């Protein structure tokens, strides 16, 4: 693919609101996980909750249609790091109909529906009159809200393939730019806490009772988090700053194996990484850091380690940042792409926190302490239910 510039980007998760706070947490190797006290949830688990989401309103004119936790989190994140302003500049330059919106989410505003089901009319079973399906529950609500809030008029879509959603948003956006459907694209992912995922992952026995410990010998499941991350993708200008961040490659594949677990050899993950390298025109030795999908379940980490070792060898340093942020599901791909952008810009390989004793069977170079080093190119992995895999490669301009 032709490289695209991330001309603005931001991330909000349990480790911070915006880039400065996120970077500070990464530098301090701080985890944002806390004991689950979300809503009325009674589960012994830890979560990555973003403080203040309920107190962060939408723009007044959009509240009636779009108000829900997921869109509040989106709007809170878009206000950071000048992303909304960069989108406005881009819209003025290319025209609002030439800016695409490609966002990933897994559960959108389903929390609103979960709450509405508690308030059904006893006689008829009807949902309460104030329930709004389209602007809250529907999967597309996130992109509809974002497009309208930023006064955009171009193509828009939500990609919803579970935990690969917002990584795949980068791949769809780069194709739309290459095909000249759009001149720039706002890409990203937003997923917010809800009962469906907390109780759902619990039902699959995939949730840890302690803060998740990716790649640890005693890892026993995920910690669910929430987050929002955005990036504005544009064709690079002729003169880029050395620390400008580029999207260099994307690779996507399907496991064709099982709905909720990967093949033990990670062959789908392997193919996604191989295609990402091919798309970037790079060799494995060009990659300086890998942000693992690293959810912290025994089988996910084992399959990923197997795949990484096969494609990249066991020597490239990597870590999962989910011990810090929790698994932000549909937002994880974009969140971790932005963490990679910070890694490139600041020469920081973030440690995987919570992990104390590495699993000796996982043949990868897992970082348990921060490392400072110049990075030119990094890879980030995102693998989801349904066997949906996506790897992205990002790099510095100089």
């Amino acid at each position: 693919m032709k490289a695209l510039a991330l001309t603005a980007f931001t991330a909000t998760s349990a480790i911070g609101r915006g880039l400065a706070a996120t970077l500070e947490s990464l530098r301090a190797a701080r985890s944002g996980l806390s004991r689950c006290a979300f809503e009325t949830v009674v589960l012994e688990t830890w979560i990555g909750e973003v403080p203040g989401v309920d107190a962060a309103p939408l723009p007044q004119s959009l509240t009636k249609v779009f108000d829900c936790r997921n869109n509040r989190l989106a709007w809170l994140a878009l206000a950071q790091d000048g992303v909304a302003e960069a989108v406005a500049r881009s819209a003025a330059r290319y025209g609002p109909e030439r800016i695409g919106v490609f966002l990933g989410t897994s559960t959108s505003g389903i929390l609103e529906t979960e709450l509405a089901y508690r308030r059904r009319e006893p006689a008829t079973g009807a949902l309460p009159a104030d329930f709004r399906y389209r602007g809250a529950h529907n999967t597309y609500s996130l992109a509809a809200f974002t497009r309208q809030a930023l006064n955009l008029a171009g193509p828009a879509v939500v990609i919803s393939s579970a935990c690969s959603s917002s990584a795949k948003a980068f791949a769809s956006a780069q194709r739309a730019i290459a095909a000249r459907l759009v001149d720039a694209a706002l890409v990203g992912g937003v997923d917010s806490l809800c009962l469906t995922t907390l109780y759902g992952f619990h039902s699959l026995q995939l949730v840890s009772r302690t803060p998740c410990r990716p790649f640890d010998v005693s890892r026993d499941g995920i910690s669910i988090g929430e987050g929002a991350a955005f990036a504005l993708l544009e064709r690079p200008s002729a003169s880029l700053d050395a620390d400008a961040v580029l999207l260099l490659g994307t690779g996507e594949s399907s496991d064709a194996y099982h709905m909720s677990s990967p093949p033990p050899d990670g062959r789908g993950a392997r193919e996604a990484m191989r295609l990402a390298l091919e798309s970037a025109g790079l060799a494995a030795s060009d990659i300086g850091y890998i942000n693992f999908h690293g959810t912290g379940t025994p089988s996910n980490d084992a399959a990923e380690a197997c795949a990484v070792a096969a494609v990249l060898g066991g020597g490239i340093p990597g870590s999962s940042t989910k011990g810090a942020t929790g698994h932000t599901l549909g937002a994880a791909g974009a969140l971790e792409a932005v963490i990679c952008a910070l890694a490139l810009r600041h020469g920081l390989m973030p440690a995987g926190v919570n992990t104390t004793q590495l699993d000796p069977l996982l043949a990868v170079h897992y970082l348990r302490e921060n490392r400072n080093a110049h990075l030119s190119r990094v890879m980030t992995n995102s693998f989801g239910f349904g066997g949906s895999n996506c790897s992205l490669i990002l790099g510095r301009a100089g």
Partner: protein
Amino acid sequence: MSPSPSLTAFVDGIGVLGPGLGDWPAAARVLRGEAPWASCPTMLPVPQCLPATERRRMGAPVRLTLAVGLEATSRASASPAALPTVFASSGGDGQNCHEICQVLASSDRRLSPTRFHNSVHNAAAGYWSIATGATAASNALCAYDASFAAGLLEAIAQLAVDRTAVLLIAYDTGYPEPLSRVRPISDAFGVALVLSPTRGAASLAQLSAVPATGPADCMADAEFESLRRSIPAARSLPLLALLARGTCGRVAIEYLDDTSVAVELSPCR
């Protein structure tokens, strides 16, 4: 500002399943006016290509998408295992979503693991890849009522950039009460198109598509227009009608807000 170029593709195979529309030849006859349309509930077959354990677990969207996807690939003489896919749906598995919300609103919130993994928007895409052995990229999209047009744009952008054939499957199955009252979708409807970058022996027509500012075309027939409006995936009907007639023409498919995707078609036969 640079306008979008039209993106072109060849339509190599079509699959359709909807109310009173049992497959593509039946739908084409009805859309050409050669046979009357008797609307009756969409009949979803139980596919034999999944193992029995998976068959038991699958909801209506899986049955619907397997039916139309396999019809389209079979008509295109294409191997389903070899094709990347784009799945477009307004709402995924509505029945499954309802069951989950009911459990979560009850005093016992223990969910069935199968219900949970079937709740992801890409469940149908996941089952498709398991059933057919398709290991290429698979996208699962949503754009509310514009989901078919959004899926078409995604598919032809992928085809234009990666120069590979793509299988597009758009589908909706609707919700039970009480969600059906706030999001009425009248019945199940699915459409699948095998789209190819080059003309082949199976090619039926060349298609070019571009986002446009005007509104979408309606169906001339009032009953078809009602069907088009009552199921998001049936927003594809104006395009299917043109494909059924096998003539040159242009249709506008419903897209975001008051816009459309303009599709021009020229038959290969």
